[in-house]
């Protein structure tokens, strides 16, 4: 089976003033379609940089990210935009909804620009928000906002769903609802999913767990079986 991602020697260095920060120091990874991967590691270990590059938000300094046979590092800015537009769904810790748009309109932002999307109402129903589609972000709870963000991410039927601390700002109960939504999308559409978290308990949901340290994958674990989101506790 060809992997969704074939990542080789991924390196990222930033210039921060006069010092050079080496955020990634040669990461190699193969990701299979439909896999749910959890990325663990302390702050500054390179998880977010890794996710940003895989998601086409950032470009590597060295190395390759082969997605469906094409190297992301060789794409132009416009091609990267289309990569994100057609293949990648993002979920962020701070939800990142447009506050002046309703829940449905936030999802419309995506359905209007992608080929063959779910309808916005359908996507919101999938995350259990069919009733609140006309609410503005300020009228929704944190968990609801994050579910709108998930609906927005999955409405395009992405090949990849990338979640950066999706439950970081949520309490346990709400966090579970959000994780259930993510796991449901992963199962239902076979969407390759990567979740960054500080919360080691979430690792139980994953097929694979990657431990990041110092810009490298320090350790990799495979779960024999995936726990249900509802079984996760912290």
């Amino acid at each position, binding site marked *: 089976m060809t992997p969704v991602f074939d990542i080789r020697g991924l390196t990222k260095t930033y210039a921060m003033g006069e010092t050079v920060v080496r955020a990634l120091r040669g990461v190699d990874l193969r990701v299979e379609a439909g896999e749910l991967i959890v990325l663990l590691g302390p702050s500054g270990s390179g998880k977010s940089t890794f996710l940003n590059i895989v998601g086409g938000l950032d470009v590597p300094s060295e190395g390759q990210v082969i997605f469906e046979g094409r190297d992301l590092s060789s794409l132009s800015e416009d091609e990267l935009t289309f990569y994100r537009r057609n293949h*990648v769904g993002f979920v962020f810790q701070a939800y990142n909804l447009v506050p002046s748009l309703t829940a449905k309109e936030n999802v419309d932002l995506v359905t209007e620009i992608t080929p063959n999307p779910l309808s916005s109402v359908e996507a919101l129903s999938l995350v259990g928000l069919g009733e609140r589609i006309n609410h503005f972000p300020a009228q929704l709870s944190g968990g609801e906002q994050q579910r709108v963000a998930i609906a927005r991410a999955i409405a395009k039927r992405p090949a990849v769903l990338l979640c950066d601390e999706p439950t970081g700002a949520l309490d346990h109960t709400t966090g579970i609802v959000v994780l259930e939504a993510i796991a449901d999308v992963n199962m239902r559409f076979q969407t390759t999913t990567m979740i960054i978290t500080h919360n080691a308990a979430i690792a139980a949901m994953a097929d694979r767990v990657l431990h990041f340290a110092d810009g490298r994958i320090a350790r990799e674990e495979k779960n024999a079986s995936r726990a249900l989101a509802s079984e996760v506790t912290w």
Partner: protein
Amino acid sequence: MVSWRLRTLDRKLMRDLWRLKFQALAIALVMACGISTYIMSMGTLHSLTETRDIYYDRYRFADVFAALKRAPLSVAERIADVPGVMTVYPRVVFGATLDMPGLDEPATARIISVPDMGEPPLNVVHLRRGRMLEPRETDAVLVGEAFAEKHNLNPGDRVTMVINGHKRTPMIAGIVLTPEYVFSIAPGGLMPDDKRFGVFWMSRQALEAAVNMDGAFNDLSLKLTHTAQVKNVLDAVDLELAPYGGLVAYERADQLSNWFLSGELDQLKVMATVSPAIFLSVAAFLLHIVLVRLIATEREQIGTLKALGYGNRAIALHYLKFIAVIALLGALMGAVAGYILGKNLTGLYASFYRFPMLTYEIVPRVFIEGALFCIIAGFSGTLVPVVRASRLPPAVAMRPAAPPSFRQTLVERLGLERWFSQPARIILRHLERRPVRFAFSVAGVGMALAIYVGSSFVVDALDYLLEVQYDITDRQDALVTFVETRGSRALEEVRGLPGVMRAEPGRMVAARLKAGPREERTSITGILPGGELQRVIDDKLRAVTPPESGLVLGRKLAELLEVRAGDPVEVEVLEDRRPKATLLVTAIVEGFIGARAFMDINALHRLMYEGPNVSAVAVSLDAREAAGFFAQLKESPLVASVLRTEAARKNFDETMGENMRTMTLFHIFFAGLIAFGVVYNTVRVAFSERSRELASLRVIGLTRGEVGYILLGEIGVVVLLALPIGCAGGYGVAAALSAALDTELYRIPTIVAPMTYAHAILVVVTATLISSWTVWRNIRHLDLVSVLKTRD
């Protein structure tokens, strides 16, 4: 396709605009001011130019004009043979006085001959009411509409005139207009005074009989071929007419009515350029600060949109649409206001400039240009931040911006901080951190002041000009001009009239002055040594006595001839024996009206080989007996005109006063709006940037007043700095306008009264207070909890 794709983003755009509606409106209004001025002036310019061209063409307005003493008609036939001359129209033109009911002094008339049969070949009149003259009708006249209106004259009425010493009472056949007097201003007048100066047309037969001009002419109009060499024609005409008392021939550009009209059109062009440029540059700056702030608050949204798959172009387009909506709103409001203002301005022109028909014409091109200018101004102010925002790498945009870096202010580096409270230091640091924005804010408020001062100074300047003209130099109550030059007995006769307290001789001759290749046609006025009524002054406004020999030049004339005191000037008098002499310039004197030359009156007599002749008498009057004085002049056969100072001054005040009051209202509005726009937007942006900080200060215990002081103190510093800069800028604008309005006919001094500065400051401070008050209301409702919860 694109619009469909951006539907949801457009909805966001609409909501953003609604949230910022007052800021957007303030900016759109500033743009509207600029565009309305553009549309108003360009539309009026277009209407006036078109109307003028058609009028001149259809009524065969002449290309060249010349006045002379008297020449037989055969001379005109010779001139017809000059290469380049297409049509020659010799006329008789004569001055007369009119006894008009309700006017103490005699009014002055200019009587122009028309052919006994058929239309004149040039300078055709346009009939408004009544009828044209019948063939060989000798007891009827046509009268210019402006004079007829002021005196409520109708066809069938009779007017009493003294023409060449004979009293006549012809009937008015018709009321007419002519391209020669679109703007009718009496010789020597500052302003049109239609009550005291009128133009009449009389059949040639009647007029030549009245003034002994059988078979002769004293005025010439020419139409030239398209290929004519104007200079050559003028020289040829001068040569032909010189033996017949010819004054210098001149082309259409120097014809008085046309000169004023062209000057007005030039001013409209300036108005159409300068004013929109100022307003649009202010609007561009305001859009810049508002957009930079909007982008800062939406930094993460930009990142998110990029993560969702929106490209750079989509993001740029989104913000450009935001600008375009405001710009088009400004253009729309400006178009409506410009159309209304243009209609009114054209109406105003129609009362000064007499055309058969003058309507404000809608020129679609002008409206489209107006909208384009708004868009260009909007984009030029915002393109850089928009492009920068659209190019933000998504991963960077998602991270909060680095906290603003501050440093100690200049005040602190100089060790002066103990003089400033902590809040004052916060204010100073904020201002220092964004020096460019700070400078632009100061410049913006300064521009409001400059606009007010620069456009209101004309009132002060004219006040000053009138004061100098009528209180210091020409101090007579009336100037009585004679039909012909007369002996000294005339002076004694005037002295004997009722109410005359003082009478001084006046002598003025037409002359051509040459210095090297430069040549000017002007007049030389004789100044009585020790005279009280007609004086010349130096730049300190002190009376100057012209030396017993030599020539004194007004500053404008000296500039035109490029001569200084001590330089020789060739003088050729164009009257009587036409003497020529080379005289030394002995002094340069001040004066705002005309490009004139002066001599000691006795020296002038010697130059003219004459005794103590007078062409006019200046008198000061006992006000109680003035009516009797003027009544006698109405009967006098020898008087050509009577210029009454008080009337001229009043006419000036009334005519200018009305226009100036309207203009002042506009200036207050324009300046107030700019000041409001700049202050409101600067404060709103500062409030948006710092609401978190201000809320934190409230949380730690600062009062609303203290927090308000920190926020509004910034704008206070801006306005305080802008006051002197704006006033100085206003003076600069006034000086530039003075220079632009500096013509051979008059000069507007750069005088700005202290009250004008005070008014400008009042307008700007009021606008500042109003906009500060609206933001102050927001400070009162600052939501401490929610502001602290959100990140920005």
